[in-house]
């Protein structure tokens, strides 16, 4: 599985449609405090099936929907789409006949999330499994959120062992 690009619309401060191409090697993401860097990274965790609003710094999942500014009204809809390369054909059978997989998640205010793979509606579980089988996912140790390193340092041995389970 290879990650090719991510698109966001209405997700936190990214109200206007935005696209990030994910290229090989090292890509830096920079900008002033509060401009949206962590929001962009959270969009990726979210579309991979993150179920905890708290881990996305919100109190409820609707908090990821653009809530408006002094000039712009709030939105009722947020959508993130991830484009994956599947030429190694390692996806679950039902999706494994395409070169590409498009995973999307959409949330509507007060009515929850809907997931799709290549246009077909699926459950959150299917999306989580897809990424888990590829050694990644919203809770993978390869996605390190801001401040998580110091939390890790201070964690109890039991909590830290959970990371070992990701490797097994």
């Amino acid at each position, binding site marked *: 599985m290879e990650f090719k690009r991510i698109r966001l619309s209405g997700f936190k401060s990214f109200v206007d449609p935005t696209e990030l191409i994910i290229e090989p090697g090292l890509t830096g993401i920079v900008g002033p405090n509060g401009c949206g*860097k962590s929001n962009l990274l959270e969009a990726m965790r979210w579309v991979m099936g993150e179920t905890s609003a708290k881990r996305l710094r919100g109190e409820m999942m609707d908090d990821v929907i653009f809530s408006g500014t002094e000039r712009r009204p709030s939105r009722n809809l947020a959508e993130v789409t991830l484009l994956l390369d599947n030429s190694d054909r390692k996806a679950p059978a039902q999706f494994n006949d395409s070169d590409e997989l498009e995973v999307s998640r959409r949330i509507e205010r007060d009515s929850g999330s809907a997931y799709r793979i290549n246009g077909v509606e699926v459950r959150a579980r299917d999306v989580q499994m897809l990424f888990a089988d590829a050694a990644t996912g919203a809770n993978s140790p390869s996605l390190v959120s801001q401040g998580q390193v110091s939390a890790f340092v201070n964690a109890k041995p039991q909590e830290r062992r959970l*990371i070992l389970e990701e490797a097994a």
Partner: protein
Amino acid sequence: GRQKMLEAFEIVNKNFGELFSKIFNGGHGHLVLTEADDPLEAGLDIMASPPGKKLLHRSLLSGGEQALTAITLIFAVFLTNPAPVCVLDEVDAPLDDANIERFCDLLDEIKERTETRFLIVTHNAISMARMERLYGVTMSEQGVSQLVSVDLENTEEMRAFA
């Protein structure tokens, strides 16, 4: 279940020891399973002694040393089961300039050993300079984020994003 856990532990421990000495330019680090005979119940503890220093309780390490140790463990696990993408949000914040260079060396090495694509959020000018490309996030309209390409050759432009 238990066998698989112990095998994974051995590999992670080996990776951890190697990466630790590399990123600390010496010293010695290893992992221990604690608090239970059954590895499925045990906790994971870190033993770390930076070069020339005695092995003290982990909490006595400095802020930067603790961060570097945690990063080393995360990468040690990562190498046993490489992911297609690795996303790091400001992990270099507590590191001094010399350690940031070593951290970037580590990234280069992992990039060579795996097919992983990295997305690295940073405020640090040294990390920025070691990236292969940069995207800037801006809010020219207050409260609204936009993505722009930042020219790595243009130091002025890069500094504006630090």
